[in-house]
């Protein structure tokens, strides 16, 4: 695209738009905000996984007249949270279906007294049988959701896998499991809500999707859209964890505000946030794969199960992405993917960076190494023989129309990491050392934007306007929570119009001010919303040229002068654009066939891992990430996304274990839910290849989720290379290594290269 050669701001490392405020400590997060007469809210939660509520009692030593108490009967509208299905109650009514489910809400002027009062509410239960695992749920002996525990299922079929088994040279089977993972945003969930008869409900909060919260509040309060207002405050990390949960928390605070007549702040502490809010779905994937004598894939039969928790929340769409990423970046003529998400009596699992893809990419990329070992081919070579290329079709029979450069990414990753040199060195050194080193790779794609017809349903609207004090203002509901929305959209608008970076501001993510540009999820912001801002900006220029005397060749001051002529004539200077699907996009929701995503980001990861066979610790010593994400709008921010995602992926593989006891998270503290620290993250080498995607903002595709997909399989493949033992389950903790390596007796030498 021509802009590539001439761009001034896109592609440069301009500093983060709101960076100085964050560094000065003056950025306003929700807990930094006070309202006149504000009370504090707290939640009384279930202590059992599944039960009928027999009674609710209040200890006498507390003067309850000082408190506002809200229960399900106080809800003026519907007692449910609007998401895909409306099966999750806002407050439990008569029955609880998981530990830490909200039953009762309390508010008081003193935040310490309201927390003490939570412990003075006595709830008695008549227990019902719980279900804690995929295996228990799929037996369907205890039904905890719907008629059969099945939250969602998909069947994706290409060709005829069953025609292949009899004649295949090799058939390799494997089962792979992934655990839950906590987002561990450093800012816990929190909101402030106000209510008045005249204005309705107003919520300020730490959240990703203002219009999701807006929609839920409309139903809970039975109010028209103009009587609900949701404003995002500075948000201290989200990673998907503030996609759906804020709808529940905002409803709770607003119910307390309505009943108490005061603004109500609800800020979870870490213990409550970890116990009660969403996590990444645990998963199980079973692969049966047929190959010919040359190591070419003939058939992939994949069975996926996820644990969705007690309510459906986002499990159907997480399962969809898990399904569509399960075959990996490979060509295979015959593919069958059956996937099911099962209900259990645990806190609902939800969105987390990657959204189902890290689970199934772990499975396929571990499986590829197991196949390579079984048929005696180098794991790099096996991948290379089966990579997708331009013109190939995926498992959904989507033709790859954009360039696919997996070979180039792989070559670069191998060269940068000296993959073969290091492997042969480790093969020599390992037998003489208690430290066994290995190299592992993973190759993968991540679909950018909503799946299939999703972007068409979203029908996003975004725009720009010009403020009376001469700033171009970006109008989006797309939120900043560290990933760079503000900066990237500023760069795109400034580039399109020819303005300075400081000429552009971002409107507050306030449903009363901005149009619904869709949720800030699915690696869609730079690509989809960025394109809307590019179009809206160019449309504004064209409009000013047509109606306000802006010359064809114009300066920055010409632009703002034309804006003022436009304002004098029309009262406003504004340009809005609605989403338009790229041409030729076709998707069949019934058959799960067609263009699963408008674009894909591609990546190859290489991990060097050291396993200490005295302490049984596994340490990632160095990491390489080569990716093609379309045009890189801001190299510093994009690099930071890759590095941060890899660090989370390292935690997913080796550190982070959610321990449930009777359905309650037992390690709900940072003391014993362990994420990688500054001493654990290895040097990470990041390299971008850029192929601009013409339907993304200045050529951008998605970048945010991609880096979480690869570390876990690359690391476990490296551990196999180091120790000769294949591990098919994460997280892989030292005790797991100890158990398996002891059982293995002597550690095998890695296969010769």
């Amino acid at each position, binding site marked *: 695209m021509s802009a590539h050669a001439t761009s001034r701001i896109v592609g440069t490392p301009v500093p983060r738009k709101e960076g100085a405020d964050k560094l000065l400590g003056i950025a306003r*997060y929700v807990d930094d905000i006070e309202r006149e007469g504000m009370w504090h809210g707290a939640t009384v939660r279930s202590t059992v996984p599944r039960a009928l509520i027999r009674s609710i009692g209040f200890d006498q030593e507390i003067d309850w007249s000082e408190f506002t108490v809200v229960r399900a009967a106080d809800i003026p509208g519907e007692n449910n949270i609007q998401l895909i299905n409306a099966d999750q109650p806002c407050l439990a009514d008569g029955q609880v279906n998981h530990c830490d489910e909200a039953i009762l809400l309390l508010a008081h002027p003193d935040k310490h007294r309201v927390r003490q009062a939570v412990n003075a509410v006595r709830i008695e239960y008549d227990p019902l049988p719980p279900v804690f695992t995929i295996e228990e749920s799929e037996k369907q002996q205890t039904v905890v959701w719907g008629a059969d525990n099945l939250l969602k299922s998909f069947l994706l079929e290409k060709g005829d896998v069953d025609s292949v088994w009899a004649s295949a040279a090799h058939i390799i089977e494997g089962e792979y499991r992934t655990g839950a993972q906590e987002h561990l945003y450093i800012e816990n969930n929190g909101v402030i809500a106000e209510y008045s008869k005249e204005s309705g409900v107003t919520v300020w909060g730490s959240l990703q999707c203002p219009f999701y919260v807006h929609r839920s509040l409309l139903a809970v309060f039975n109010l028209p859209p103009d009587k609900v207002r949701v404003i995002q405050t500075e948000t201290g990390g989200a990673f998907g964890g503030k996609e759906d949960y804020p709808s529940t928390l905002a409803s709770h605070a607003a119910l307390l505000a309505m009943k108490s007549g005061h603004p109500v702040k609800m800020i979870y502490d870490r213990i409550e946030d970890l116990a009660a809010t969403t996590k990444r779905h645990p998963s199980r994937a079973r692969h049966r794969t047929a190959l010919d004598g040359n190591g070419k894939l003939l058939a992939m039969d994949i069975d996926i199960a996820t644990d969705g928790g007690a309510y459906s929340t986002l499990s159907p769409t997480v399962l969809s992405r898990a399904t569509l990423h399960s075959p990996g970046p490979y060509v295979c003529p015959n593919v069958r993917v059956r996937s099911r998400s099962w209900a259990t009596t645990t806190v609902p699992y939800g969105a987390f960076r990657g959204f189902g893809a890290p689970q199934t990419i772990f499975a396929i990329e571990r499986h590829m190494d197991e196949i390579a070992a079984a048929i005696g081919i180098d794991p790099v070579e096996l991948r290379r023989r089966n990579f997708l290329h331009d013109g190939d079709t995926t498992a959904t029979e989507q033709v790859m129309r954009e360039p696919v450069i997996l070979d180039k990414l792989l070559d670069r990753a191998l060269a940068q990491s000296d993959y073969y040199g290091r492997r042969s060195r480790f093969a020599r050194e390992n037998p003489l050392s208690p430290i066994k080193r290995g190299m592992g790779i993973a190759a993968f794609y991540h679909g950018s934007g909503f799946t299939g017809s999703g972007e068409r349903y979203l029908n996003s609207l975004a725009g720009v306007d010009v403020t009376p004090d001469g700033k171009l203002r970006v109008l989006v509901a797309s939120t900043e929570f560290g990933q760079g929305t503000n900066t990237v959209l500023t760069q795109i608008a400034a580039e399109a119009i020819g303005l300075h970076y400081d000429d552009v501001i971002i409107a507050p993510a306030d449903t009363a001010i901005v149009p619904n540009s869709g949720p800030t999820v699915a690696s869609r912001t730079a690509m989809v919303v960025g394109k809307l801002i590019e179009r809206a900006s160019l449309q504004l220029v064209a409009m000013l040229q047509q109606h306000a005397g802006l010359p064809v060749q114009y300066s920055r001051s010409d632009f703002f002068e034309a804006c003022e002529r436009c304002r004098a004539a029309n009262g406003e200077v504004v340009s809005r654009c609605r989403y338009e699907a790229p041409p030729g996009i076709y998707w069949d929701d019934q058959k799960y066939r067609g263009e699963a995503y408008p674009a894909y980001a591609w990546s190859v990861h290489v991990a060097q891992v050291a396993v200490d066979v005295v302490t049984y610790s596994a340490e990632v010593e160095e990491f390489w990430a080569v990716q093609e994400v379309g045009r890189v709008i801001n190299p510093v921010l994009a*690099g930071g996304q890759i590095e941060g995602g890899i660090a989370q992926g390292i935690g997913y593989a080796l550190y982070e274990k959610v321990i449930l006891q009777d359905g309650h998270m037992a390690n709900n503290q940072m003391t014993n839910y362990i994420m990688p620290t500054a001493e654990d993250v290895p040097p990470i080498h990041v390299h971008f290849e850029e192929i601009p995607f013409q339907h993304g903002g200045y050529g951008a595709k998605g970048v945010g989720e991609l880096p979480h997909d690869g570390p876990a399989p690359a690391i476990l493949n490296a551990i196999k290379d180091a120790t000769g033992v294949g591990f098919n389950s994460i997280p892989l903790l030292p005790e797991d290594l100890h158990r398996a390596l002891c059982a293995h007796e002597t550690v095998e030498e890695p296969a010769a290269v």
Partner: protein
Amino acid sequence: MSTLDTTISFIVNGESRTVQVPPMKRLLDVLREDLGLTGTKEGCGEGECGSCSVRLNGELVNSCLVPVLQADGSTVETVEGLARNGVLHPLQQAFLQCGGAQCGICTPGMLMAATHLLSHNPHPNMAEIREGLAGNLCRCTGFIRIFESVVAAAANQTVNKVASGPAHAR
């Protein structure tokens, strides 16, 4: 003021401050609620994440673990004290240029830990940087650009002068 409150006087970011608060109130809450210094953040409330890091008499502490009576008569430095006359401290400037801050919630504590590190060790090597920041969790960056920020700030000589100023005011 309740009868259980006590008088605490200390120097916060170079200014004398006096508050009447319960003696066991966390320094974190006194800073945020009584002094309006909301730059210091709470992430875990148990001394694991370092988001509430401040310097107390030149030592780096988790202010969520410090009862305010322990700060009586002390010198406290918070993120709000880093910039001078609206000019970013060299560490803040380095974080801005290198991408050391993403969501920003760990940033104030991270800046205080980095300030503390450079005040003792003006030219830390990578292992010393990692160790110096190991008590501060960042979930966004993977730490790499935070390390780069500290390296860049250390390379800027002015940082040492500025950072060591308040550090030795004890």
